[in-house]
């Protein structure tokens, strides 16, 4: 499997820094290439399309289906609206995304790296641009070796312009998730958008241009922590792209094999697997960090096997365990059976438990909330008639896209009444009705007065949306008095 003879060990000046070996991957068609196309189209469509989906929420809320409204601290996702204090929903989604990656890794190996990772998707896109401008593998290699002249400069400039256009579209689309897309687009082109919109677009354009256009597989090999983590997560039962060396070795050309039947394996050493690899590795050296398991080498090898009349699957998705079994002449486990094993079931269980938990929380969520802060300095005020006054700041939260009437009431504290800053004391009552504007939190300063001689005690404020029995909240607070606790 290893080819130590491939490394030349002659004397040469030692460099601490390695030059990047550019990758000119050959065009290939096949099963996995088509899956890759499909996933690429879906991912890009989701990325570019999502901000433009409209979702009617009434006159008081934005009508963008997915919107992260940082200025107003709201996160809209279709019918769900998340407030900052409900960030656990977002945290839950992120945890689900994390466990989802574990799940995918344990079931189908580095499928994320191979198909859905943005770095992979955009690198793939840029490699298609390369192919469009400079031709396939050999033509690109020739152009790379060619001296700089007007023709090469023109080609390079044209290609980089397209790189830049794609990068700009990528960086520019990001900002639409954070503001109303049509408005922002108009503002963007008329130069009236916020500076942060231009800054973000510039930064993301440049990162896409550099990472997708030039860094490519270097990101996976040197920068990204995920391949390293995945290396630790893969086990003998994980599907990885495997070169079946027991079948392929020793390699020999078709002619050689015909001359010496039985002496050579199935690998005809055509190097097609290396030629199509987007990260430029040789899968025949075994599992390695540079392999993103995109399966393009499988497509390439299958085609060669078909052409030479040998069975497919010399390079294939297989587990280390199955590799041993096949080596010993036993049939491999079916892939579906591989997916259903304790580890994947455990991940799936945790993943769906979190998902169901979030859905449950979403279902019982109330769109009304009350928080109360008591004035601590001074804790109480003795009034001239001997009664005792405490002051509280109530925050009434209306999480719906329409103004609502809400009733605040005192629960407990016998004889007490309250009034607010915009009322006189003689209007004091045990319950008040306020209209809270749509999608807002209203602060109300409330004075609660209890008769002379009232002891310090706990009582509660209740909040009830008028006409909506389920929409209620309650908050217990302390009432302080010179009489002390009784």
């Amino acid at each position: 499997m290893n080819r130590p003879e491939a490394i030349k060990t002659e004397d040469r000046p030692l460099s601490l820094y390695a030059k990047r070996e550019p990758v000119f991957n050959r065009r290939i068609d096949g099963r996995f290439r088509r899956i890759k196309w499909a996933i690429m189209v879906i991912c890009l469509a989701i990325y570019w399309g999502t901000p433009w989906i409209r979702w009617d929420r009434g006159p008081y809320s934005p009508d963008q289906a997915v919107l992260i409204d940082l200025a107003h601290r709201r996160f809209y996702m279709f019918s769900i609206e998340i407030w900052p204090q409900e960030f656990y929903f977002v945290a839950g989604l992120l945890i689900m995304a994390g466990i989802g990656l574990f799940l995918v890794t344990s079931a189908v190996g580095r499928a994320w790296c191979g198909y859905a990772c943005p770095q992979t998707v955009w690198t793939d896109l840029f490699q298609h641009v390369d192919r469009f401008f400079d031709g396939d593998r050999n033509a690109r290699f020739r152009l790379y070796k060619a001296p700089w002249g007007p023709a090469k400069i023109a080609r390079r400039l044209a290609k980089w312009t397209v790189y830049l256009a794609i990068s700009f579209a990528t960086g520019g689309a990001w900002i639409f998730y954070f503001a109303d897309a049509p408005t922002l687009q108009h503002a963007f082109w008329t130069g009236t958008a916020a500076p942060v919109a231009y800054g973000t677009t510039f930064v993301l354009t440049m990162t896409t241009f550099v990472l997708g256009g030039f860094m490519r597989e270097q990101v996976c090999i040197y920068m990204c922590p995920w391949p390293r983590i995945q290396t630790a997560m893969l086990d003998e039962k994980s599907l990885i792209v495997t070169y079946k060396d027991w079948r392929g070795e020793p390699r020999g050309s078709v002619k050689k094999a015909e001359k010496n039947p039985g002496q050579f394996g199935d690998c005809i050493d055509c190097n097609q697997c290396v030629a199509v690899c987007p990260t430029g590795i040789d899968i025949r050296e075994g599992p390695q960090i540079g392999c993103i398991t995109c399966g393009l080498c499988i497509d390439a090898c299958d085609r060669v096997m078909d052409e030479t009349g040998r069975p497919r699957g010399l390079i294939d998705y297989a587990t280390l365990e199955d590799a041993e079994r096949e080596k010993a002449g036993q049939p491999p486990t079916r892939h579906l059976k591989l997916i259903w094993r304790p580890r994947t079931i455990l991940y799936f269980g945790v993943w769906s438990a979190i998902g169901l938990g979030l859905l449950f929380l979403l279902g019982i969520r109330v769109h009304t909330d009350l928080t109360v802060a008591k004035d601590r300095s001074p804790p109480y005020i003795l009034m001239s008639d001997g009664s005792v006054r405490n002051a509280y700041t109530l925050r009434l939260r209306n999480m719906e896209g329409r103004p609502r009437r809400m009733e605040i009431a005192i629960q407990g504290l016998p004889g007490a009444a309250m009034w607010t800053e915009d009322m006189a004391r003689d209007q004091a009552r045990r319950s008040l009705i306020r209209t809270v504007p749509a999608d807002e939190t209203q602060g109300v300063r409330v004075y609660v007065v209890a008769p002379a001689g009232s002891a310090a005690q706990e009582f509660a404020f209740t909040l009830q949306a008028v006409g909506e029995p389920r929409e209620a909240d309650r908050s217990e607070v302390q009432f302080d008095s010179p009489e002390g606790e009784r």
Partner: protein
Amino acid sequence: MANKRVDEATNTETVGHEWDGIEELNTPLPRWWLWTFYATIVFAIGYVIAYPALPGIHKATAGLLGWSSRGQLDNELASAAADRARTVAALRDMPIEELPRHPELMHAAVAGGAAAFKVNCVQCHGAGAAGSNGFPNLNDDDWLWGGDLKTIEATLTNGVRQPGDAATRMSQMPVFGPSAGGDGLLAPNQIQDVTSFVLSLSGKEKASAASRRGMAVFEANCAVCHGPGGTGGRQFGAPNLSDAIWLYAGTRAAVGAQIANPRHGVMPAWGNRLDPVTIKMLAAYVHSLGGGEEFTAPAAPAQMGMKPEAEATAAR
């Protein structure tokens, strides 16, 4: 260099050095990493030139951009002052009694007053304006000199018993006791009797023979300022003696001591220390603490569009 070989375990070339059997694998860094490193150095040099960076004995180098954190603070303060300018001008031109009719302006005034209070007033009145022995509590509904906006503004401007201020609030309770330099207006037993009467006014003591004797003393000596029922007199700043609130404590000893040898608080006249707008804001804040008198409900939103002149006419 001749000892280069390929390490079998890792399939990686060695660099060819060997120290006591220890060899090094040749795993070079990518060259772009080196360029990134150089770029950070260039950035650092640019940063040092553009921004304050190199420390000297007294100050650091200024930097070509002239930026400093203090300068940034000055800019932010200036822009905050510019933002406030309209509110401040509106407050300056508006008589304070019209403030409740402009809820937004009132709100701004209360917020500004809260800030000014923390700088100028908390030393005596306390952080929550709850006062202490001898310093009035500003949260309650008991006022010595009056608790509407205009009166509070006047008290703030001219102070209480401020020497040298002609318009200051001035009053002095006679020294009734026979102490040194005192007037000796009342005999000790009379002071005991009138103390009993005063405490009976607010129900702190039950009516007794002493309090009945004290009533006559009170009517002859005290009612002229504190009123016949002891309900106080605001033109003299004479406290209401029939309520639950006491400036110098409501114990028998404290009340007796105040009659025999009274103490008088002094509040500075703020008119020559603070600008009129700050005083208006302080008055609005104190009025908003829950005891403000002559309560006027804020104007309904529909009325907010009225012209100030029209509102002024309506107020008259």
